[in-house]
């Protein structure tokens, strides 16, 4: 007979504590390495604009509202936002939340975070994102009201870019290298140009993330990034080219993940240079372009055909809006003949080296235009020079222009590329300018209808030929569970 086992109270408690701690101890070992193409620029959210920086900042700080994985907007540190009048919004904050240094996450923190960005003396590059907001008024520790200088359909989107900082600490100027936020992670180490290491905050008040240690590494070279994920040095790597993604997908051993982006490749026309001032020529080009051939052959299927110049995640575009052109080379050839342009030399311009296969896409479009009788010369230049040429309307009559859309809203993209005073616009049409201004002042369904009208107008004028939306392509370790997002944001708290 076995002797009775005696377990004292202390031993019992120790055992229970060990069982309770065990899963946590295992969790502490859970680390993930994410390799991006570039390093973090700064850890102060007022000055961080690029994707690589934003990805790290969104682990340390919380935005007032947050962009969800499907592109829609939900609560963040605060929210949701309530539209009090066309020019007033109120945002409420939950009580009891604190930054890592103990300062409260309250309305004053939101106001101070906004104020430091819009202060002209701060020269913050994020300032233009908030110029439409003229005032932030603290109503109570749990509520803040914003006033805009007109109806602002982008207000909620602006709030996804307003990362909240602790006001007293921010005033010390230390955020650049020693950030303090209210997000689920805090900084452990930043080795510039090499890696940022984050650890989970046990006291953030947010759901505990699966990965308790996150390292963002900067690996500019694609082959080195792929090697890193294959050897287990990284669990997720960004910015794969279609060719490499295709090769990896066929090779196995590593997951290839992808998501539609809001970045759309579009054929544009410079109407200052003949024959692009002729609608029939623009229609001929639109019909000659075979985007499916480009998606299949050049992009290896890692691109999505679009019906308009907007990616699928852009909100506020009428369902069924159609701005695309059917491929009809016969009709295009006939039009070119009617115009007497058969054998006529046309230049196509594009940027080179900024977006995946941008130069090759220009060459492919050039080859398709040759098939309908044009003598095409393709000129792909350094991207900055190309944009300068577009802006000055010195660019070729046909040019290939990638569109970005950080707002997930159609209007900023339309204004940038089609307003006479747009940021990178070669299009001049007073009637369209008026329509864009009218859309800027509208909200809700009325705005959506006006956007639909503009899409139809652009098609009628053959002002733009949408080709495809780029896809964000990632390589991931076999066990990593993560769903890529249309904004290219990578959040470790969304991974298991």
């Amino acid at each position: 007979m076995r002797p009775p086992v005696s377990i004292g109270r202390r031993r019992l408690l120790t055992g229970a504590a060990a069982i309770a701690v065990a899963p946590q101890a295992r969790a502490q070992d859970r680390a993930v390495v994410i390799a991006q193409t570039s390093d973090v620029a700064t850890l102060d959210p007022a000055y961080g604009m690029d994707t690589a920086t934003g990805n790290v900042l969104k682990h340390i700080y919380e935005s007032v509202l947050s962009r969800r994985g499907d592109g829609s907007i939900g609560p963040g540190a605060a929210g949701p936002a309530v539209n009090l009048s066309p020019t007033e919004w109120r945002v409420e904050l939950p009580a009891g939340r604190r930054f890592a240094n103990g300062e409260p996450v309250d309305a004053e923190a939101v106001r101070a975070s906004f104020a430091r960005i819009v202060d002209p003396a701060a020269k913050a590059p994020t300032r233009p994102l908030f110029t439409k907001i003229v005032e932030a008024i603290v109503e109570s520790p749990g509520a803040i009201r914003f006033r805009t200088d007109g109806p602002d359909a982008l207000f909620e989107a602006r709030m996804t870019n307003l990362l909240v900082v602790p006001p007293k600490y921010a005033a010390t100027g230390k955020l650049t290298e020693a950030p303090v936020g209210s997000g689920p992670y805090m900084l452990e180490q930043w080795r510039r140009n090499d890696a940022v290491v984050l650890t989970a905050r046990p006291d953030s008040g947010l759901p505990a993330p699966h990965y308790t240690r996150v390292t963002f590494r900067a690996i500019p070279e694609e082959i080195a990034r792929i090697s890193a994920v294959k050897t287990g040095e990284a669990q997720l790597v960004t910015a794969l080219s279609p060719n490499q993604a295709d090769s990896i997908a066929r090779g196995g051993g590593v997951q290839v993940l992808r998501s539609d982006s809001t970045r759309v490749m579009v054929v544009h026309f410079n109407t200052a240079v003949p024959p692009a001032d002729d609608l029939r020529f623009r229609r001929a080009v639109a019909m000659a372009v075979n985007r499916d051939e480009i998606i299949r052959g050049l992009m290896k299927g890692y691109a999505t055909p679009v019906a308009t110049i907007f990616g699928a995640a852009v909100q506020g575009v009428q369902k069924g809006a159609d701005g695309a052109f059917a491929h009809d080379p016969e009709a295009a050839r006939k039009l070119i003949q009617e115009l007497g342009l058969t054998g006529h030399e046309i230049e196509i311009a594009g940027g080179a080296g900024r977006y995946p296969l941008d130069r090759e896409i220009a060459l492919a479009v050039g080859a398709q235009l040759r098939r309908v009788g044009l003598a095409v010369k393709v000129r792909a230049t350094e991207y900055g020079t190309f944009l300068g040429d577009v802006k000055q309307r010195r660019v070729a009559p046909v040019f290939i222009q990638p569109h970005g859309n950080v707002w997930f809203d159609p209007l900023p993209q339309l204004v940038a590329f089609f307003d006479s005073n747009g940021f990178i616009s070669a299009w001049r049409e007073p009637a369209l300018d008026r329509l864009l201004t009218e859309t800027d002042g509208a909200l809700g369904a009325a705005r959506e209808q006006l956007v639909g009208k503009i899409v139809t107008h652009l098609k009628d004028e053959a002002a733009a030929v949408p080709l495809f939306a780029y896809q964000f392509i990632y390589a991931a370790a076999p066990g990593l569970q993560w769903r890529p997002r249309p904004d290219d944001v990578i959040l470790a708290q969304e991974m298991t």
Partner: protein
Amino acid sequence: MLTYLIRRTLLVSVTIWGVMTILFGLQHLSGDPTLLLLSSDATEDARRTLANQLGLDQPLAAQYAAFLWNTLTGDLGLSWKYHQPALRIVLEALPATALLTSAAIALGLAVAVPLGILAAVYRNSWIDTLASFIAVLGQSMPVYWSGLLLILLFSTTLRWLPSMGSDGAVALVLPAATLGLNIMARIERITRASMLEVLGQDFVRTLRSKGLSERSVLFRHGLRNASVPIVSMVGLQLSALLGGAVLIETVFAWPGVGRLAVNAVYARDFPLVHAAALVVTLTFCLVNMLVDVLCASLNPQIRLD
């Protein structure tokens, strides 16, 4: 010596002015940086505000004058990307580049000099052929290409070495070997040629006829006399090394000045490009000056002034 130093200092000043002027011209020929610094759906007002913040709306002559003044005072301003003093950022990255280039030079010398001596001593033998083959291989392969091949072999396939980063000495092996392979070829060839020239001279025959050991003839007298062109070559190779480091640091994600400069160029971060160019130019000029002094100490026939 003093006259020499004064003259060289003046020459360095002229060189820096020339490099900075070319840099300024190239920066402003490469388009409007505000178009790249903002997202493509930004507004024209945002672009104007940014241009004003960065002083890019000033006349070109005023920008050039400020650029030269900043160079002279060493106050290169804040990096547009990092929002920290540009010179400080470059100086922080300098040790990583110095470590990489030093390791590459050490590796290159350790292999190339013995190989060059062997190729000279056993002229037209299989050793000479092998050394020539290695030299041709090292010199003809672009560093980014050999770097990628080494990653595929030693990281992806064999999994012996990390493909990127700067964690510990082991991370230095691949980038230093890639960079070292390139300069090794040049040093091996110059060592072989110099040794052949020296070993064919009358004093070597005299030394041998006096009964000196072959080791003494080769290393004590031969190599010493052959070393001036080798040292000069190493000095000249520094520019190739710094150029190579730009590529190698990008391929291997090594956090040095080269990669920083490349990123700054892509991001149109003018102050950071300015700081990187200034530091690299100064380093290059100073090393060249040091090489001249070293050559003079190795060969008394060389007079600095």
